[in-house]
């Protein structure tokens, strides 16, 4: 091969020139490959580097203004909350607060803070920093109050300091540097669990001031973020923010050597943005990344066979067949909604259309969440019973507009079209006429469903933390939302029951109240039909060790190491 370019002393013929060009291309390619290979192997130091494939760009790096999983995946490594989630579970454990207690009325919460903790910019973490964080969140104004930015605050705490909407938050005080006291306006079942949400992570007050963290503005068709959210997120976590290179789609985090707890094993943690699912799989196969999230269910076996670690999480989500009672009067009849429940064959759906480990859902959240009732009404597949109920309701000729989304997969809904086809077939078997309406997820589907334009629809939810309110409170606590339970006399009643249960400070009593609600939800109300809980998977190469999968998709990378580096 190496002889070819210089083989002839005569002027080379055209044919020889073509051959020579080909040889040169092969030589260039081989040399290039050698260089690329050596550069890949050269990365990392003692603790190594892990490169993880992210499905999308993070919206920003200030978790308070974020609500997307890709942002949280990154900020979770940089920042910590007063409480955190136990690895591998949805239950809370101490984090920056070592312990806490609350008054019997559930309105005052005292947190004993971990001592000797510093933010990445050397600012001390103490009671003052805690209160400054909560004051910052509570005092949002203008664009900062928009749901698109302060989604988790509005969803969890309600209003802001301007008093236009009631807020769960009342005030914060710090009797000494090691204590922070939060005063709430009412008791809630979500406390203190919601403090483990990434949005309520503790961030350095000094860095937030320096880089004007609150300076968000509505501009044009979107929001403009301050310098802090783009390049200076500062927390107490095991990794520090390194850099974000947009032109190469990479975010680099580096180990925090001053971390108060067990230090990260990795020197560097790199997230590479790879929007295409197939490309993520190929990247793993080629060794360019060490892992990625939510692999396609159809690829799991091949990934496993190739020697990768495919870890299936405990399911912490729900997929349901939503019912909107606004437009189709027949759906306001309980018997009609029950007919839908009897018509769908959930066992077959789970076996045929959902990934391994998926379970049939009998209520609106998994059995690991508090207040789960064992004795709810069951709806086994029974098309004859469905027909009978429809006849009794005078709705034998029931026609429904069945909405299903395209251009999307969700952890609870990996294949919307396949799921729609299976369910539509079941409904037709029960004598129901189905008009399919399919729209792109961001191309009208969510708009239509949220504005209650569907009759029935496919949707679901992944829980944020272990709280019934985070599932059924969000679904049915607002009678005028996508389910439009306000069209039935019990819509307001159900919302009131949910509020009462959420506000009950006694845990035992509260769980009983939620169990009662769950029983009624399935037997008396049935505002939707629970379908399934699907376990999302996460995949890493065989070189990666120590990754603990989280049911909340909230993996921490501090415990991870990469062999061979």
């Amino acid at each position, binding site marked *: 091969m190496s002889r070819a370019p210089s083989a002839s002393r005569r002027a080379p013929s055209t044919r020889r020139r073509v051959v020579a060009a080909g040889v040169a291309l092969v030589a260039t390619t081989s040399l290039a490959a050698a260089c690329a290979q050596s550069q890949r192997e050269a990365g990392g130091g003692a603790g190594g580097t892990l490169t993880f494939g992210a499905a999308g760009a993070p919206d920003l790096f200030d978790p308070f203004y974020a609500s997307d999983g890709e942002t949280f995946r990154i900020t979770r490594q940089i920042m910590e909350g007063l409480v955190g989630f136990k690895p591998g579970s949805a239950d809370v454990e101490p984090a920056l607060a070592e312990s806490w207690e609350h008054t019997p009325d559930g309105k005052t919460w005292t947190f004993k803070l971990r001592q000797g903790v510093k933010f990445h910019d050397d600012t001390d973490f103490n009671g003052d920093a805690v209160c400054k964080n909560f004051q910052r969140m509570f005092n949002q104004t203008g664009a900062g109050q928009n749901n698109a930015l302060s989604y988790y605050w509005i969803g969890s705490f309600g209003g802001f300091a301007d008093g236009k909407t009631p807020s769960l938050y009342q005030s914060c005080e710090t009797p000494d540097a090691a204590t922070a006291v939060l005063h709430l306006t009412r008791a809630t079942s979500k406390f203190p669990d919601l403090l483990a949400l990434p949005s309520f992570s503790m961030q350095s007050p000094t860095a937030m001031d320096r880089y004007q963290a609150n300076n968000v503005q509505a501009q044009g068709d979107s929001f403009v973020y301050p310098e802090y959210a783009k390049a200076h997120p500062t927390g107490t976590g095991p990794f520090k923010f390194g850099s974000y290179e947009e032109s*190469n789609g990479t975010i680099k985090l580096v180990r925090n050597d001053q971390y108060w707890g067990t230090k990260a094993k990795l020197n560097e943690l790199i997230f590479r943005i790879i*929007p295409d699912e197939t490309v993520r799989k190929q990247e793993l196969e080629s060794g360019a990344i060490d892992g990625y999230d939510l692999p396609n269910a159809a690829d799991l076996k091949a990934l496993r066979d190739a020697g990768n670690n495919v870890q299936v999480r405990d399911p912490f989500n729900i997929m349901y067949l939503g019912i909107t009672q606004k437009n189709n009067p027949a759906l306001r009849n309980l018997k009609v909604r029950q007919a839908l429940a009897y018509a769908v064959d959930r066992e077959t759906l789970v076996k045929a259309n959902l990934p391994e480990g998926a379970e049939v859902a009998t209520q609106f959240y998994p059995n690991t969440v508090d207040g789960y009732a064992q004795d709810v009404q069951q709806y086994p597949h029974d098309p004859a019973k469905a027909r009978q109920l429809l006849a009794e309701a005078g709705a034998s000729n029931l026609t429904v507009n069945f909405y299903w989304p395209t251009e999307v997969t969700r952890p609870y809904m990996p294949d919307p079209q396949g799921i729609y086809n299976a369910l539509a077939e079941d409904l037709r078997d029960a004598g129901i006429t189905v008009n399919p309406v399919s729209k*792109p997820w961001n191309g009208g589907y969510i708009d239509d469903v949220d504005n209650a334009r569907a009759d029935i629809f496919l949707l679901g939810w992944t829980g944020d933390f272990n709280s019934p309110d985070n599932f059924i409170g969000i679904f049915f606590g607002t009678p005028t939302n996508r389910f439009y339970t306000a069209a039935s006399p019990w819509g307001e009643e159900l919302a009131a029951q949910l509020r009462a249960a959420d506000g009950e400070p006694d845990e035992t009593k509260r769980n009983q109240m939620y169990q009662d609600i769950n029983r009624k939800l399935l037997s008396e109300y049935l505002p939707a039909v629970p379908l399934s809980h699907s376990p999302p998977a996460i995949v890493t190469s065989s070189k990666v060790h120590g990754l603990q999968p989280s049911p909340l998709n909230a993996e921490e990378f501090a415990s991870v190491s990469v062999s061979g580096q």
Partner: protein
Amino acid sequence: MLRYTIRRLAQLALVVVVLSMLLFAWLRMLPGGPVSALLGDRATPEARARLEADLGLDQPIFVQYWRFLARAVTGDFGTSTGVQRGSPALEVFLTRFPATLELSILALLLAVVVGIPLGYLAARKRGSWLDNLSITWSLIGVAVPVFFLAFLLKFVFAIELGVLPASGRQDTGLDATRVTGFYILDGLLTREFDAAWNSFVHLILPAIALSTIPFAVIFRITRAAVLDVMDEDYVRTARAKGLAGMVIRRRHILHNAMLPVVTTIGLQTGALLAGAVLTERVFNIAGIGQAVAIGFQRKDFPVLQVVILASAMVYVLVNLIVDLSYALIDPRLRTR
């Protein structure tokens, strides 16, 4: 010549304004919108209404367009809602354009450097094995979808053989200095030659994939044009006069056959930008092609507007350059 250039530049401005109107209206007629993308699937109708009001999306479309235009003349094309949320749309474009341009230039170079000589040779050796092989190759190039070829190249060279990188613009561990955003150029400017080489290596597979169609088209046009010219009377006359073969080939055949080829190269520039959408997706290059794909998915109107308008401008400008270069190739045009 000057008047011609000015007239064409005026046309360019008109094209951009009309296109901006059509694009603005069309994007907003699509179902869904940035509100869903910004709020996600957990939004209440009240939150939607509030966001629409905050962003002025509840205003009539001509009011929104007027505001867009008023801002655009100051260089503010809006803020990205999805591709790079919170960043100015123009910045998103400028950050990503070098990647696409770098890829497109390399692909076009490949197409031209291989396509023109091969087209010329195929014409001269009409009916030979070289001619037949080249025609078959170009046919396959046009018939095989770009993304399929891209996946195939990637599978063979990156995954199975492991001799070339599977995706991206540069290895993540390199930490190279950025100057212009053109990674190869940056490496050369900062004398970080390993980084420049690394970026070049990353471009090999995507450039080959992207060059396939332009190559096929340029090859076929060259071959056809050369065949046409070879049969012209003046070539026969030149031969009869006993001119040297080299002179005939260079001055009479190649020179005159270049006019349609240059036009084709201009037109292919537009095709390259379109092809980049798929190539960038397969090779995960954060260029404007990828921005368009994500932009449509997440209804990022500001980014789509900037990218599509700018691409149109590039397309029109390239064709203007092509038209002007006619004059250089064909002296008859200079006198008109």
